[in-house]
């Protein structure tokens, strides 16, 4: 197993290099550069910059160099943990995004856990009680969940939470807690703010997974080996758990690889609407201001998550299905 993992991890490196190359150039495709955006900002506030200042800024930031050189300057620091310098924040990229990345991962991770914990039991119930009232209600809710985009749900939650229920519906902490040192009270305050965005982010995935689990289990329940297990005298619950669900879960794991990056991008949107300090808000700003090193690192971060989650999904599949393990 270990050589396989090492091989896969090494195999990621060329993909990442290619991805970083492409993202770096795509970010810079719009006309102008960071200095132009600074210039227009200054202009919109009534000021002006003379040509020499603009040139000096370009030289200082290295923007006068060819793009390949700029790319090399950025990428060569990666092995040493230097992810470049954010022009807009005047700070190393890593310092700007480190805590935000933490929150992003936390929110996405919790949303994933929520999705799996909720969808598997519901999917199993729906399949074993096909066309029952419960199955129909869950199917209806599932389609509703599938069809409402996360930004809309966030907005609805903002309105309902603050105006109707009168509870804090945005941010991660109450204002009085934001700068307080960590304590139990602050942790509880965090939990109070955390559950809503986690559910909002998880709801589309949950609906998807319920449909997949239901369909897959219905398929497996017709398999001969399920009847064999029953004919052995096994209890129906055990037949479902040990034989049917174990097999039916395969497609769920395959989509897991796709869901992790989806969660990251959902955390960006939900973070923006509910003002949660995920990488979302700064990602948007970095794209507008053409702060290419910051935007590039965030994009690369998402690419890494995609590759890692695919590897994870493959490993889990191999772990639960011997037919994959031996090939």
């Amino acid at each position, binding site marked *: 197993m270990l050589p396989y993992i090492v091989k896969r991890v090494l195999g990621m490196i060329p993909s990442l290099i290619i991805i970083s190359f492409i993202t770096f150039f795509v970010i810079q495709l719009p006309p102008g550069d960071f200095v132009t955006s600074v210039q227009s900002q200054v202009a919109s506030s009534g000021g002006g910059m003379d040509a020499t200042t603009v040139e000096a800024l370009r030289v200082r930031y290295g923007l006068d160099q060819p793009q390949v050189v700029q790319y090399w300057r950025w990428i060569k620091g990666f092995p040493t943990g230097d992810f470049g310098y954010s022009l807009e924040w005047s700070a190393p990229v890593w310092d700007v995004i480190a805590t935000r990345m933490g929150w992003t991962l936390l929110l996405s991770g919790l949303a994933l856990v929520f999705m799996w914990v909720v969808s598997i039991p519901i999917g199993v119930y729906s399949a074993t009680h096909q066309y029952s009232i419960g199955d129909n209600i869950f199917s209806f809710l599932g389609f509703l969940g599938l069809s409402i985009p996360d930004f809309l749900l966030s907005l609805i939650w903002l309105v309902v939470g603050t105006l109707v229920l009168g509870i804090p519906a945005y941010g991660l902490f109450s204002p009085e807690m934001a700068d307080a040192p960590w304590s139990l009270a602050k942790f509880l305050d965090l939990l109070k703010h955390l559950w809503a965005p986690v559910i909002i982010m998880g709801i589309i995935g949950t609906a998807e997974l319920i449909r997949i689990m239901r369909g897959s289990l219905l398929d497996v329940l017709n*398999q*001969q*080996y399920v*009847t*064999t*297990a*029953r*004919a*052995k*005298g*096994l*209890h*129906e619950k055990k037949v479902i758990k040990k*034989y049917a669900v*174990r*097999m039916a879960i395969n497609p769920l794991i395959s989509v897991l690889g796709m869901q992790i990056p989806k969660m990251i991008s959902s955390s960006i949107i939900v973070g923006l609407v509910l003002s949660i300090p995920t990488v979302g808000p700064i990602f948007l700003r970095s794209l507008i201001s053409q702060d290419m090193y910051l935007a590039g690192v965030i994009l690369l971060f998402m690419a890494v998550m995609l590759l890692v989650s695919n590897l994870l999904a493959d490993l889990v599949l191999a772990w*639960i*299905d*011997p*037919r994959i393990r*031996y090939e």
Partner: protein
Amino acid sequence: MKNEEKNYLLTIKDLVVHFHTLEGIVRALEGVSLHLEQGKTLGLVGESGCGKSVTAHSILRLLPPKLCKIKGGEILFRQRDSAEPIDLAKVDPQSDLIRSIRGHEIAMIFQEPMTSLAPIYTVGDQIMEAIMLHRQVSPEQARESAMEMLKAVALAENVVDEYPYRLSGGQRQRAMTAMALSCNPSLLIADEPTTALDVTIQAQILELLMSLQKEFNMAILMITHNLGVIAEMADEVAVMYLGRVVESGAIEQVLGNPLHPYTIGLLKSLPKMGDQTNRRLAPIPGSVPDPLAKVEGCPFHLRCPVYKQKGCDGKELPSVVEPEPGHLVRCVLYY
């Protein structure tokens, strides 16, 4: 039926099973009667859709309970330690009682060896599971017995740690047989056990079943559409058509002196060794009616070549007659 005083292991009386599908009611079984003695083999023959497999699955109550309803009849099974037979038709398919019989007193092997073992557990796991479910043994003892059973079906002992997908079709059917016999059942239901296998493997599996039957003294309900298999294995045979047994009796009686026009047609449609190669086989005219349609009267009259003789108009369901002792037939020709 006569001979009721005899101690049959399994007696099915007038079993009626209906499927409630979206398109309508399918009358899968319309009154099936059978009996099987301890240690003997009963062959159940008929073409696809005649209700052979439904009968087999009904005995173990394996039909999906929402879709398939037992509308009437009895399935009397004599358990090992009790004098009085129990009626499996009245047992709750989810009950502890039926689960203690499944795999323990009645075991079943299936048509599709490629899919009847779960791909994610080893052969040994699956056999041990059955053993530990019905016998009070430790996992080590269960593994021992599993390996013994594998040896009994002429598989290597190390198959115990193999996954089913690494075995061939014949090996899987052997492993399946080992699992079915692991708790020493008094009745083995074999639902077309050789249909998916090629001819040489078929012969091996049949021989294996016959020798194991002697060794374990169990009865076999052999379901097949292959009359050759029946001729080789069975003591008694029942011919089914459209959810009814149309003819039954000892193997020599039914195959040597077939009475029902359907049985006669089945035997005529078989190729014979030594026949001239240019002789055409004689198929039964027509085809099996639509499963949703209710055939009134004699189920076979739509395809029967002789029903207009002897004043038979096919409008009435013939009753069962016994032209010779033990040989039953449902046809007006023998009134």
